[in-house]
């Protein structure tokens, strides 16, 4: 009997591991939402900066400019929505530095350079959080590097990446997407492919749009 006991243990562990794996897979692999979300236009930079699950029932895509005031006002609204909806909401950020904003492109490059080290969202938050600091600085580049120093990042690599071809390509790809969608202002926000046209986008407006996409009746 004792001779066969290890095989019984191994078989039991195999069964438990298989059942756990399949169960976990089935619980995660929900059918994707068929709303034709964000399949139109040029694809933009790949991979996109996405926060949250690709299988989230609600996909929000923001085209933002770090210098733009409405974008900085939308930032805490988006954070609030992410907190409230958790894994039901995914957020993708696209670079749309407006040409009328003199420092927006530098900020976009800084965010993308941080993104090459996997720190896009940290830099995104730092840029909006310290917006007035780097906007008001005489030397924007130095101010952006200072901003990046608050994020866990290899600063030497960051400085090199600020002028890199890869960063330029990513921003150009996002701009192609902007052009293909005929956008003309920031922030441009899409929820499951539908653009939110109201401005400013408050938490109430965003909540209503997300609830609508989730099929939740308004309270």
């Amino acid at each position: 009997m004792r001779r066969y006991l290890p095989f019984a243990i191994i078989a039991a562990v195999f069964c438990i591991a298989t059942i756990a794996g399949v169960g976990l897979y089935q619980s995660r692999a929900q059918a994707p939402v068929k709303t034709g979300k964000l399949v139109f236009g040029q694809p933009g930079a790949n991979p996109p900066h996405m926060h949250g699950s690709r299988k989230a029932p609600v996909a929000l895509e923001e085209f933002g400019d770090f210098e733009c005031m409405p974008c900085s006002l939308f930032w805490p609204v988006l954070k609030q929505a992410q907190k409230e909806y958790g894994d039901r909401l995914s957020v993708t950020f696209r670079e749309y530095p407006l040409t009328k904003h003199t420092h927006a492109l530098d900020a976009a490059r800084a965010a993308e350079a941080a993104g090459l080290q996997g720190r896009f969202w940290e830099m995104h938050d730092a840029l909006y959080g310290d917006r007035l600091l780097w906007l008001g600085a005489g030397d924007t580049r130095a101010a952006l590097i200072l901003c990046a120093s608050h994020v866990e990042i290899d600063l030497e690599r960051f400085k090199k990446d600020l002028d890199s071809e890869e960063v330029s390509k990513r921003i150009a790809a996002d701009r192609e997407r902007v052009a293909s969608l005929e956008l003309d202002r920031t922030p441009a926000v899409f929820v499951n492919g539908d653009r939110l046209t109201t401005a400013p986008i408050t938490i109430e407006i965003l909540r209503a749009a997300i609830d609508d996409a989730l099929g939740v009746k308004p309270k």
Partner: protein
Amino acid sequence: MRHQRLEIFLYVLAALIALVGLADAIYLTVQHLTGETVSCIASSGCETVLGSSYAVIGKVPVAAFGAAAYFTVFSLATLAAFDWTRVRPLFLCLVGMMLATTCWFLYLQAFVIHAFCDFCLLSAALTGLLSAIGIAIFFLVKKDAAATS
């Protein structure tokens, strides 16, 4: 033979560590297959590491190979604990291979991807523990062989 009880204890410990590694690897495999984002707890590089080209071999996630390896280690350690002495060299060989693979992935994270993933570091720590157990067993067996000859 003097250290037989200690040896059995080490194999049981190795089997339990392999179970933790198996759970970690299954979780990462499922996350990969379902396209879920893996959120780190202590670091912030999970998405970077697990989304990199090094996280897959062909179309198979590396974590799936890890799950197979941990399950095999568990099986070999269990058999060894029940006196199946012939599997002991296999256990040591497999742990050695896992250690080499772990070192490679640590190198990739540190110098190529420039990001660390909590779940990969956990797996590296577990493999480190398994290696330490493997070395201890190796010397115990050697010592016993010297004592009996």
